[in-house]
């Protein structure tokens, strides 16, 4: 095991000892014990950054886990993994620091739970981005789903928290399951090539061959389903706004910087395999753009700060997703010079990924501070906080301006590159882009206008306007320094990346691009990553200016729209599908169960008989099995006819007898006549036993008769039911037909009976002349032993039922 393996495992190890530390050191906030974990990991990971401008060194280490199945804990650190790992540990450290001040060390706050869940999540997330093995990746993926649900339901006494946790669990686990199926398909596909593997890198190295497999498209769709559910893409985004019931540090960490980007990571990771395919291009780009539009439009009607940020996150994730889709065109090799032109979309995606993590993390923390210091997050109650909370205000200004895409912050740069990417994709002449390509920049532009509007709402409704202390629970004032440090750090990063974007160019962006778009460049070459503020008077700049102009115009007229139902309705209409679907699932399954599980034995018997009849009839028809052969039959003597007719008459009369004692008597007669048949067919022992048992049975029937409840004592004629008649006749016919066919087949197959052996050896080996008894106690004595056991169990059961009566009508 190398150090790198412990990067993902260390949080789990610490999570084990956290509860002990919590119990032992109650006076110290547990968060302080947690803080070193992400901090040390961050420092450790930084050393892998190629700071000198050279190409990044790719590290790989394997530890066998289930080698017989090809499942190994392989850590693989390339540019993409490193970028995510740094985000997870870096923002993780800041979030832990923030949470120390946010969740006060009170008696009623189960801090140990919080930090155990958080560490579990952190370790799982690191595992997801570092694993090269699909199965290990899936395991960590599911742990992120689990721990995030636990974190959302941290205040589990709240109804809404539990609802949000359940919803996010159901949606992300459903997607994760689809993803597992996709992984399995990949394994099967490589298995068809003769080298079944779970290793992502090896699978990617077969990309050219795998493209021809019929399973390629299903695998792609299933993996995309996993990515879209995790990254809150339309229509699976509905869990994210409800996950805002989590504590704010959790929202900042999981729902802006890390977990929701796991799907982005998955798409980026699989771009070398699926990229260059038309389906991948259209699905990823289309879903991304639509999510971006949907999220930004939904965000402007939210009244809760965290909900605005949630929909904003959805929108920005859609942006990154669409850029990854557009950039995948670079892997389509028929276009000349594609690599350098279309890879700008990938560049924009990575850059915006970093930017979004910084400004959205800081914005969530700011919202948490506002909530913490005023007691509300409702924009209708807030206002005029600019002078009261100057530092919070400054941080928000930076974050919001970056989110809206204003210069000189980093959001502006990535937004410009986003426009460049969409404009360039319009000129693509593959995948039929020329007919529909104009949609890309149009949708991107409209979504950006809405992004600008909700950014303005977020800013102006919170910090400007009139201060309304009467609506607030607390007197608003500036937050303590501890709460402010993490957002200040993030906001400084926003500014630094805004002014010096090229700091990231060859340290983070280029290595990540190398892993998303392998094979485009020759060995040792690097992508041309240059990010400038000033491109000259190009279309992108005019688009940004138009965004600002239109956004301001619409914001100023927002009051006119306020009363429309569109604005009044905060919840996403798609929630109706989820809620009704879940209810429908429950009521639907209840209906199905009620339909078949009637609780009536006669119905269950009917199911069984109908099934047996159907099964045997089908078998007979399918294999044409009915045969008859009247050879080897003996002549029936006249008296036997009469005996058999009597038995038949008695049997048929049974259902028609309305008097219970009479039916018991007729049953006894039938038993006696069966004994007679045994005599006629030369079975003295059977006849003897049959007579005795039949008598005992009749006596037992009479005994039971007296104990029938009074009400039922009225002798009723059995109900006539035509269906029952059909089924019983069918059952009889099936058995008769089977018997006749078996007899005919025995003649055909010429099977000799083994009874010759018993006849010869019953005296020689068993020492008896009564062959039946010798078989029962000698040749096949074991069966007899167990029959004796059955009888003893039955006797004991009867005694128990009679003697040990439960009190108070309890059922046994």
């Amino acid at each position, binding site marked *: 095991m190398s150090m790198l393996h412990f990067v993902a495992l260390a949080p789990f190890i610490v999570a084990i000892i956290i509860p002990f530390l919590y119990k032992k050191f109650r006076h110290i906030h547990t968060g302080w014990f947690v803080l070193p974990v992400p901090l040390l990991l961050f420092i450790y990971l930084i050393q892998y950054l190629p700071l000198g401008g050279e190409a990044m060194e790719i590290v790989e280490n394997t530890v066998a886990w289930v080698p017989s199945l090809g499942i190994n804990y392989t850590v693989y650190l390339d540019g993409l993994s490193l970028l995510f790992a740094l985000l997870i540990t870096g923002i993780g450290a800041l979030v832990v620091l923030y949470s120390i001040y946010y969740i006060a060390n009170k008696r009623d706050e189960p801090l140990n739970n919080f930090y155990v869940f958080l560490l579990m999540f952190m370790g799982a997330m690191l595992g997801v981005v570092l694993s090269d093995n699909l199965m290990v990746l899936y395991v960590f993926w599911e742990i992120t789903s689990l721990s995030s649900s636990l974190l959302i339901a941290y205040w589990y006494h709240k109804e809404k928290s539990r609802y949000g946790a359940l919803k996010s669990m159901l949606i992300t686990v459903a997607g994760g399951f689809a993803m597992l199926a996709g992984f399995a398909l990949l394994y099967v596909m490589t298995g068809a090539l003769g080298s079944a593997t779970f290793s992502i890198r090896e699978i990617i190295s077969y990309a050219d061959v795998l493209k021809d497999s019929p399973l390629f498209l299903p695998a792609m769709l299933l993996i995309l389903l996993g990515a879209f559910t995790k990254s809150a893409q339309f229509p699976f985004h509905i869990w994210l706004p409800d996950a805002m019931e989590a504590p704010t540090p959790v929202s900042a960490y999981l729902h802006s910087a890390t977990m929701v980007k796991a799907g982005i990571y998955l798409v980026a990771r699989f771009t070398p395999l699926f990229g260059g395919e038309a389906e991948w291009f259209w699905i990823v780009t289309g879903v991304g753009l639509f999510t971006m539009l949907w999220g930004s439009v939904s965000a402007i009607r939210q009244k809760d700060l965290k909900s605005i940020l949630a929909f904003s996150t959805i929108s920005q994730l859609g942006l990154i997703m669409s850029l990854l889709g557009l950039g995948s065109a670079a892997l389509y090799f028929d276009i000349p010079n594609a690599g350098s032109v279309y890879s700008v979309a990938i560049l924009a995606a990575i850059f915006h990924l970093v930017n979004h993590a910084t400004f959205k993390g800081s914005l969530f923390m700011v919202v948490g501070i506002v909530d913490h210091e005023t007691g509300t997050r409702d924009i209708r109650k807030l206002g005029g906080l600019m002078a009261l909370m100057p530092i919070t205000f400054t941080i928000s200004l930076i974050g919001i301006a970056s989110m809206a895409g204003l210069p000189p912050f980093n959001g502006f740069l990535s937004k410009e590159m986003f426009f460049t990417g969409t404009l360039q994709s319009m000129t693509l002449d593959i995948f039929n882009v020329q007919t529909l390509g104009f949609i890309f920049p149009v949708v991107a532009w409209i979504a950006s206008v809405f992004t600008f509007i909700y950014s303005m709402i977020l800013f102006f409704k919170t910090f400007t306007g009139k201060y309304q202390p009467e609506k607030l629970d607390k007197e608003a004032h500036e937050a303590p320094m501890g709460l402010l440090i993490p957002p200040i750090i993030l906001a400084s990063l926003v500014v630094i990346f805004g002014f010096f974007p090229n700091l990231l160019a060859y340290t983070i962006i280029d290595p990540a691009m190398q892993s998303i778009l392998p094979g485009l460049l020759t060995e040792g070459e690097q992508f041309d990553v240059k990010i400038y503020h000033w491109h000259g008077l190009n279309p992108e700049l005019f688009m940004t200016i138009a965004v600002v102009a239109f956004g301001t115009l619409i914001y100023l007229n927002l009051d006119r729209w306020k009363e429309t139902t569109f604005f009044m309705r905060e919840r996403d209409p798609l929630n109706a599908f989820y809620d009704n679907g879940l209810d429908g699932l429950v009521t639907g399954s209840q209906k199905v169960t009620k339909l078949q599980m009637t609780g009536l034995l006669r119905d269950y018997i009917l199911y069984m008989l109908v099934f047996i009849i159907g099964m045997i009839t089908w078998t007979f028809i399918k294999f044409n099995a009915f045969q008859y052969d009247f050879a080897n039959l003996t002549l029936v003597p006249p008296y036997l006819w009469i*005996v058999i007719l009597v038995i038949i008459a008695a049997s048929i009369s049974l259902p028609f*007898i309305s008097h219970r004692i009479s039916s018991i*008597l*007729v049953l006894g007669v039938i038993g006696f006549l069966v004994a007679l048949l045994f*005599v006629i067919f*030369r079975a003295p022992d059977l006849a*003897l036993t049959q*007579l005795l048992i039949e008598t005992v049975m009749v006596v037992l029937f009479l005994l039971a008769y007296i104990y029938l409840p009074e009400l039922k004592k009225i002798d009723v004629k059995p109900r006539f039911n035509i269906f029952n008649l059909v089924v019983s006749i069918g059952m009889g016919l099936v058995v008769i037909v089977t018997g006749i066919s078996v007899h005919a087949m025995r003649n055909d197959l010429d099977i000799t009976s083994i009874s010759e052996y018993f006849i010869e050896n019953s005296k020689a080996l068993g020492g008896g002349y009564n062959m039946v008894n010798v078989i029962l106690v000698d040749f096949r004595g074991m069966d007899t032993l167990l029959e004796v056991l059955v009888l003893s169990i039955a006797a004991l059961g009867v005694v128990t039922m009679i003697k040990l009566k439960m009190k108070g009508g309890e059922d046994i």
Partner: protein
Amino acid sequence: MLYTVSHITLVLMSLSIAICLYRVFIGPTIADRIVALDTTGINLIGFIGIIMILQDTVAYSEAILVIAILAFIGTIAFSKFLEGGVVIDRNHH
């Protein structure tokens, strides 16, 4: 000769069983049915005896004895049931 006579007897005996059964079916009282059942048992004894002659064996003599006992016990049980509603009395102490 013996063979033919035995077969004729068997036919007659089975007819007699059928007639007894008819009485079991239609009653009209329970007592009628019980007596018919008892007679069925006795008919069985004769039937099995003739079968023994036909099959030239003594293997069913136990069966005959058992039927004789059971017919008796069965009739007693039914009669007791009709009389008191129970077959086996409880201990009164």
